[in-house]
């Protein structure tokens, strides 16, 4: 439970640190922001960090790579939404508008680290290296998950809200017991912070002093419910305090700020700081999923105001201004994005064969006698070809 002196020093100014709230002061909610919406660097003293603890701007190649992934991420979101409209996927929760968070989540981790994403984090999952078509298996409806979590150290995208944060804590705990220096990024949304498992996960991570970075994408809504109905805390980052943890709030549409903050968080966690909480302030530009109608609960003006803060535009302007992003480079990024989109279209374009026997294969490591009986019953039905010819299949009409 001892924090190395070096890390301790650094944590002290990682946003709301342990020492920060012990006696009364007054002020405003701080937020790390480095680029303004038009892509210009903010003056150093307006970036929200404590004096002496400024965040360095990541090197140019990292930023260029981040932008490339932003472009791909946006394309993935739009391609998938189109595929849903064409009936190639059952549902897709788009992260359009949140791509900076998605990309930074993938970039901040090293190979041995783990990521625990939600249903909305497909772009982060792909950016981490998971095959795009495999990642879409869940939403296509072929199976509950399409990739092997162990391959890229990415948990299955999780739907029961915040339950995955505890899995993240467990992975970190097991690694720590084995003496490995794995950092785990545990992701959730603003709405999810209200669930009991959020509380238990942060507390377990803090008490066992585990290298988990909790990353909350505060996109202002939980389906239709705005943040104000979710919490009256000054910020979600403030929730760190109750666990004896340090927290930081960052502009979630500013890829540079995100990279800076998440990089530092991962470094701190790896060096023994214990868990940290990062809140990214962003916006879900599209409906919750294709099944949702966002016009029922939010005004167009609000959406437009956030459109002006688009994470791609901001980064593009900055990189062009710096002269790093030339027309050629942009064209090559666009081509990369188009290639991923093509893979998605092709991969999801035709129906993959599904095998009814799979229903029984993976329930346990070995099927029980009961499951073998049931599998035999189904196999017999399938063999009779009854099922494939049937019209009365419940659910077929939807």
């Amino acid at each position, binding site marked *: 439970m001892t924090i190395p002196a070096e890390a301790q020093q650094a944590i002290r100014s990682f946003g709301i640190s342990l020492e920060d709230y012990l006696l009364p002061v007054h002020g405003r909610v701080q937020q790390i922001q480095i680029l303004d919406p038009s892509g210009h660097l903010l003056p150093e003293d307006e970036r929200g960090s404590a004096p002496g603890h400024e965040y360095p701007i990541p090197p140019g190649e990292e930023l260029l790579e981040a932008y490339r992934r932003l472009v791909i991420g946006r394309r993935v979101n739009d391609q998938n939404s189109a595929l849903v409209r064409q009936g190639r996927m*059952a*549902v897709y929760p788009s992260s359009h508008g949140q791509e900076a968070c998605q990309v930074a989540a993938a970039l901040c981790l090293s190979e041995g680290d783990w990521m625990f994403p939600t249903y909305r984090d497909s772009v982060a999952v792909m950016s981490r290296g998971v095959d795009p078509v495999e990642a879409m298996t*869940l*939403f*296509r*409806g*072929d*199976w*509950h998950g399409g990739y092997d979590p162990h391959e890229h150290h990415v948990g299955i995208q999780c*739907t*029961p*809200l915040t339950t995955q944060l505890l899995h993240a804590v467990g992975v970190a705990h097991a690694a720590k017991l084995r003496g490995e220096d794995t950092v785990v990024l545990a992701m959730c949304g603003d*709405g*999810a912070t*209200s*669930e*009991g*498992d959020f509380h238990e996960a942060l507390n377990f991570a803090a008490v066992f002093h585990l290298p988990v970075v909790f990353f909350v994408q505060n996109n202002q809504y*939980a*389906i*239709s*419910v705005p943040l104000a*109905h*979710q*919490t009256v805390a000054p910020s979600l980052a403030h929730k760190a305090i109750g666990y004896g943890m340090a927290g930081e709030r960052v502009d979630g549409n500013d890829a540079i700020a995100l990279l800076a903050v998440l990089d530092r968080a991962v470094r701190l966690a790896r060096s023994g700081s214990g868990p940290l909480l990062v809140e990214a302030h962003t916006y879900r530009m599209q409906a919750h999923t294709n*099944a*949702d109608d966002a016009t*029922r*609960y939010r005004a167009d003006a609000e959406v437009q105001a956030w459109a002006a803060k688009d994470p791609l535009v901001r980064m593009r302007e900055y990189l062009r201004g710096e002269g790093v992003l030339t027309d050629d480079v942009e064209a090559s990024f666009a081509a990369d994005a188009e290639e991923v989109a093509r893979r998605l279209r092709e991969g999801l374009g035709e129906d993959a064969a*599904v095998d*009814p026997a*799979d*229903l*029984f294969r993976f*329930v346990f490591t070995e099927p*029980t006698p*009961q*499951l073998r009986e*049931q599998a035999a019953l*189904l196999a017999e*039905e*399938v063999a009779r070809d*009854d*099922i494939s010819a*049937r019209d*009365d*299949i*419940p*659910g*077929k009409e*939807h």
Partner: protein
Amino acid sequence: MSTVAEAVAARAAASAGPEPLTFAKALTAAMADSLRADDSVVVFGEDIGTLGGVFRITDGLQEEFGEQRVFDTPLAESGIVGMAVGMAMNGLRPVLELQFDAFAYPAFQQILSHVAKMHNRTRGKVRLPMVLRVPYAGGIGGVEHHCDSSEAYYAHTPGLKVCTPATVADAYRMLREAIASDDPVVFLEPKKLYWTKDLVDLEALRAEFDAKPASSEGRAVVARPGTDATLIAYGPTVGTALAAAEAAAAEGRSVEVVDVRSIVPFDDETVTASVRKTGRAVVVAEAAGFASVASEIVARVQERCFHSLAAPVRRVTGFDIPYPPPKLEHWHLPSVDRILDALDDLQWED
């Protein structure tokens, strides 16, 4: 702008006769009428206010009854149910929506240890008139955690009433009765029926409720009469059972269908009478079969009708597997053919 519930009511009143109404709108009307009739009724849950619920079952209610009586909560199911317990202790009648079956699980401690037990624990001093509306079961192409059939968990827990409508009229009738009940009721709504329609005279249903507010509570109903075998079904499988009975009729077999409606309490009388008459029975349910409500029905029927049975009581249920992904669900769900197979199996040669 008038609410949908009012519009529906107006239309029904104007025509003074049956109108096509969806299952969903029947539920909305039941809540609207209850809110109107009783000041102590409040409706809350996730996304049920402005949005009208992800299935739009509470559509228009906040607009009509205001944010004090119809409101969104923070995203926390144990919080929703636990707060409702306190509200019910203090004079209100909370009607909760738990967004999907599997998302009621975080509230299980509150449901099993408090909702179910408070009345008993206090020797009847504290009543908990509350309704937990749970959209359940599948057949809608939903991804994992969105299609669980969770009725067995509730039905096994002493102290909870558990019911599930299978028709549009019952959706209205049973939800009003549930809200009027002084006991906690887990009200299971088969998701795939939300968009089904039926000709329903809402005014007549209202009159029926006003005259006998608990007329169907705890009662099963014979949904189709027959003489040769009984299909016992509830919620999402009633329609499939009726279709199977229809198909069997074409093959010359007269099959009776009993719609259970109320799982707790269970209407032994209606079920037993049917099976004693027909001598054969198949229980049809969507949930995994093991240790399920279907198991219970089989156990009760064989206990009570043993000497009338020409064959063992059979079950057609979901397999003992996690609910499958959309592309595979049709293999899991009880189908007409599977029911016909089970009927064929009932030792007709003996």
